[in-house]
C-alpha cells in the first residue's frame, strides 16, 4: 500500500524520521498551476533545446558525448594544423610563402572537412529522430500543443544550428591562426576580411545540405545504428565510385556522374563563393559545369530531401 504522509514544507522530506519506506508518497498538498501557458511556441522551443542537447550528448551519459565531441575535436584540429603549417611557412620561409605555394586555406577547408562533418552528422542526426520513435516519446509530444510539422522543423533547426557552429568554428580558428602567423595581424585582417562572408556562406551551404540529408535518412528507421551506417556507407561508397567512373567514362556523362559525388555537392557552392577551386574538386569534372547548374543541383539535393522529411512527419498529426 502507498503510504501517504503529510508534512508542512516541501523541504521536509522526512529525513528526521530516517529513510522513507519504499513507495512512500510525500503529500505536501497539490498546488494548482496558475502561471503562464505559452502554448505552441514554448513547445517548439523545447524541442529545439532538447535537440541541441541530444546531438551533443549534453545531459546524457558520458558515452553519448564521446563520438560527437571526438569529431568536433578532429574538425578543429584540421583547422589548427592548417593554420600552423601556413604560419610556419610564412615565419620560416618568408611572408607570402603560404599563398604562393598554394597551401590550403579558407577556400579549401570545406573540401577537406565536408566528409568529416558528414560523419559527425551521420552519428548525431539519428539521436534526434530515432529514439523518439523507437521509445514512443513522439506519442507524448504530439498530444501536446505541437504538430508533426512543428516537431520536424524544430528538430531540423536545432540540428542545423549545431552543424553551423561546428562548420564555422574551425574557420574562425583558422582565421585567427593565420592572422597570428602573419607578421602584422592587423594588416592580415585588413587584407583578408572578405574571406569571412565567403566562409560564412559556404559553411551555411554545407550545414543545410548535411543536416537535411542526414535527418531524412534518420527519419526512415528507428534504429540509430542502421541510420548511421547507411549514411557513412553512402558517402564512403559514392565518393570513390563516382570519382573513378567519372574519370573512366569522361565527357558529359562523366561530368554528370561526378555530380553524384555526394560529398562534393556543397563544395562546388563553396568554390563558386570563393571563386577558386578547392583541393578535392579540382579534379572533379562536375566543376566544369556552369554556376547555375551547380547551384540548382545543390538546391535539388536540399529541397527534395527536406520535402520528403517534412511530408513524412506532417502526416503524424491530422
Amino acid at each position, binding site marked *: 500500500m502507498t503510504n501517504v504522509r503529510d508534512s508542512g514544507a516541501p523541504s521536509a522530506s522526512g529525513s528526521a524520521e530516517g529513510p522513507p519506506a519504499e513507495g512512500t508518497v*510525500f503529500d505536501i498538498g497539490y498546488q494548482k*498551476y496558475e502561471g503562464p*501557458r505559452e502554448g*505552441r511556441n*514554448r*513547445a517548439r522551443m523545447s524541442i529545439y533545446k532538447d535537440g541541441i542537447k541530444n546531438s551533443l550528448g549534453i545531459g546524457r551519459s558520458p558515452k553519448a558525448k564521446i563520438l560527437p565531441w571526438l569529431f568536433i575535436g578532429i574538425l578543429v584540429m584540421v583547422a589548427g594544423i592548417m593554420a600552423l603549417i601556413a604560419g610556419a611557412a610564412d615565419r620560416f620561409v618568408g611572408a607570402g610563402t603560404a599563398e604562393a605555394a598554394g597551401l590550403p586555406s579558407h577556400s579549401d577547408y570545406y573540401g577537406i572537412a565536408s566528409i568529416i562533418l558528414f560523419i559527425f552528422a551521420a552519428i548525431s542526426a539519428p539521436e534526434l529522430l530515432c529514439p523518439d520513435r523507437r521509445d514512443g516519446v513522439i*506519442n*507524448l509530444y504530439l498530444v501536446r500543443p505541437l504538430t508533426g510539422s512543428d516537431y520536424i522543423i524544430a528538430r531540423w533547426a536545432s540540428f542545423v544550428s549545431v552543424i553551423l557552429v561546428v562548420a564555422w568554428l574551425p574557420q574562425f580558428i583558422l582565421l585567427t591562426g593565420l592572422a597570428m602567423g602573419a607578421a602584422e595581424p592587423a594588416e592580415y585582417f585588413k587584407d583578408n576580411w572578405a574571406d569571412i562572408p565567403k566562409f560564412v556562406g559556404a559553411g551555411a551551404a554545407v550545414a543545410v545540405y548535411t543536416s537535411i540529408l542526414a535527418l531524412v535518412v534518420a527519419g526512415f528507421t528507428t534504429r540509430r545504428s542502421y541510420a548511421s551506417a547507411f549514411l557513412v556507407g553512402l558517402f564512403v561508397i559514392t565518393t570513390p565510385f563516382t570519382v573513378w567512373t567519372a574519370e573512366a567514362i569522361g565527357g558529359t556523362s562523366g561530368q554528370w556522374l561526378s555530380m553524384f559525388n555526394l560529398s562534393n555537392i556543397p563544395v562546388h557552392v563553396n568554390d563558386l563563393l570563393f571563386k577558386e577551386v578547392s583541393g578535392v574538386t579540382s579534379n572533379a569534372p562536375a566543376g566544369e559545369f556552369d554556376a547555375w547548374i551547380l547551384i540548382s543541383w545543390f538546391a535539388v539535393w536540399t529541397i527534395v530531401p527536406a520535402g520528403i522529411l517534412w511530408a513524412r512527419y506532417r502526416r503524424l498529426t*491530422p
Partner: protein
Amino acid sequence: MEALLSAENLTKHYKDVVALNDVSFEISDGITGILGENGAGKSTAIKIFLGLLKPSSGRATILGEDASGNIIVRSRLGYMPEHDCLPTNVTAAEFLTHMAEMSGLPPSHARSRAADTLRHAGLFEERYRSMGGYSTGMKQRVKLAQALVHDPAVVLLDEPTAGLDPAGREEMLDLVRKTHRDFGISILFSSHLMADVERTCDRIIVLQGGRLVQSGEVKSFTEETETVFIEIDTNREEFIAALEKRNVDVTQDGGGIFVEGSDETVYDHVRDALVESKAPLRRMGPRRRALTELFERDGDDFSAGAGS
C-alpha cells in the same frame, strides 16, 4: 455542468474495419472508466479526443473545443499511453521538465512543477536516476507524472495498470483516485479489467465491437452484477418451478442455478422455494458477474437506473 469531453455520433473506419460505430457520450467532472475488451474501440476513442485521429464522421469535443481543430486546447490535456513512451537515457527530473515545457510552461515553472509532480507520484528519491534502470512500476509512475506535470483539466489514461503486479496495480489505482480527489483533475481511464474500473471510477462507459453498450454510474452496475448462485442435489425442476412461481428471474447452466435480484427479498423467495420443492441445498452465495457477461447483455436490460 458543462461536459469536459463529449462524443457525438462518433464513427471511425479503418478501411473495412469499423473501430467506432456511432458512439455518443459525455464526460463531466470525476473519474470515468471506458471498459471494453481488446479491439472494442477504447484506444481509438482516446486517440480521437487527443486529436491524433480524425473521426470518419461525428464530432469529438474537448473542453468545449473541437478535438482535431484547436491544438492549443491540448495545453490543458494530459495523456498516459498504454505502451512504452519513456526515453532511456535521461533522468526523470529532466524528462518531466521537458514535458512541462512541451505543454507550454516556461522553464523555471517547468522545473518546479516537475519536482512537485515527481514527489506526488512517489518518485522524489529516484528523480536524478536515468530512466533506463527503472522498474515497470516506476515507469508507470513517470508515465502518469508526465500526464499531470502541467496541471491539466483532464487526463486520459490508456490502460494504466497494464503489466503491473497486484501491489503495483493497487498503488497505481490509489494514485489515480488521488489525482482526482486531491488534485482536482478529471480522469478518463480505459481498462479491460472490471475490477479496476469498479474500484476507481464514478462512471463507466462500456464499449464492445466499437459500439456503446452501456453507460452510467458505477453503483448501478455493481448492484446489478450481483447474482445469487445456487447449487442443489436433486429436485431441480421442482425448485426452478417454485422460483418461477414467485416471479424470480432464473437462469441455469450445466451445474448451477443463477438467480437475479438486487434486493434482499430474493433470498426469502429462494428459501421458500427450497422448502416447497424439498430440494437439498448444497451451496449458495453471491456471484460477481464476469466482464464478458456484462458485454453479452443487451443494452436495454440495464436501462433502468443506468441512464447517463
